[in-house]
């Protein structure tokens, strides 16, 4: 059973609060991988990663047919954030049953707290030529992390948690 460290929780926040830009890696059911950078990230409980569903296309389609995902730090990498979090994900979209549960995470709790993420944690640190003109959030991806391995040079593949 995974329990995030303090450093992991600090890293898995939005970049403007000292966190990270992350990569969310998914796969189709027959093994076609997909990798996309995400800015809206947080932790929930001790073993869940939350990611806003704002502009997800292939990522969303993959999660709907195959819950296996990997999350890793894209930037900054030079602060010891050499982790890959592997687990199972669901996209809790608006309209989910209020009592929907994903490994202990409740849909009502998640959407009440994180359902308007752009307002709660606006992307003030994002350069103006990149920031999106209008945020349209459709849900929250909840990753139940089952294992963590390292991508630190010299220790790649070693189990961290």
């Amino acid at each position, binding site marked *: 059973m995974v329990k995030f460290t303090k450093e992991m929780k600090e890293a898995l926040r939005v970049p403007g609060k000292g966190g990270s830009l992350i*990569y969310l890696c998914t*796969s189709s059911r027959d093994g076609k*991988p997909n990798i*996309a950078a995400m800015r809206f990230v947080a932790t929930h409980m001790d073993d869940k990663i939350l990611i806003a569903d704002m*502009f997800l296309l292939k990522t969303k389609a993959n999660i709907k047919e195959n819950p296996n995902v990997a999350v890793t730090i*894209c930037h900054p*990498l030079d602060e010891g954030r050499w982790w890959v979090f592997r687990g199972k994900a669901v996209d809790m979209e608006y309209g989910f049953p209020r009592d929907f549960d994903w490994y202990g995470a409740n849909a009502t709790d998640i959407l009440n707290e994180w359902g308007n993420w752009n307002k709660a944690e606006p992307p003030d640190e994002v350069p103006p030529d990149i920031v999106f003109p*209008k945020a349209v959030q459709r849900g929250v991806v909840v990753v139940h992390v089952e294992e963590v391995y390292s991508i630190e040079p010299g220790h790649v593949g070693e189990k961290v948690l």
Partner: protein
Amino acid sequence: MKAWIEAMGCHLCVATPEGVPSVVLGRYAEVRGDDEVAFALAADEAGVIAPVIAENPRVAFGVSRQGGIRAAYQFKGAGEILQSGDLYDTVAAQAKEEKGIDAAAVLRVRLTELYCTKPGYEAGQRLDGMTPDELTAWERQRWKDVPRKRD
């Protein structure tokens, strides 16, 4: 695009035939022509992805570090693990000289798909239908801070 890949390296994503993804860093990258990238992999990095690629050659990658936002592209293609030959020798030597990497293998990815991952209305747009010149023009309209480009 080529400059970002080579300057920052990439996050390499593979998946088993059953759809379980794994990630390692491609810390040294060499762009070869318009549709091929070679990554030098240390023994531990190759140890994670080589067994997966042996069963399923599909690879997706994005640029590491600031490139994740400043070079918002996703590249997809077919990967091949090389442990000998001219390409292996050339890339391994350059990786050792430039980044001190002892390459146990080289991952050659022949690119077949390119997507925009810039957040907003263009997210997910497929770009590999453009010619290289059209793509360069498209890129320069959006990003002005491409590493090592003079204009």
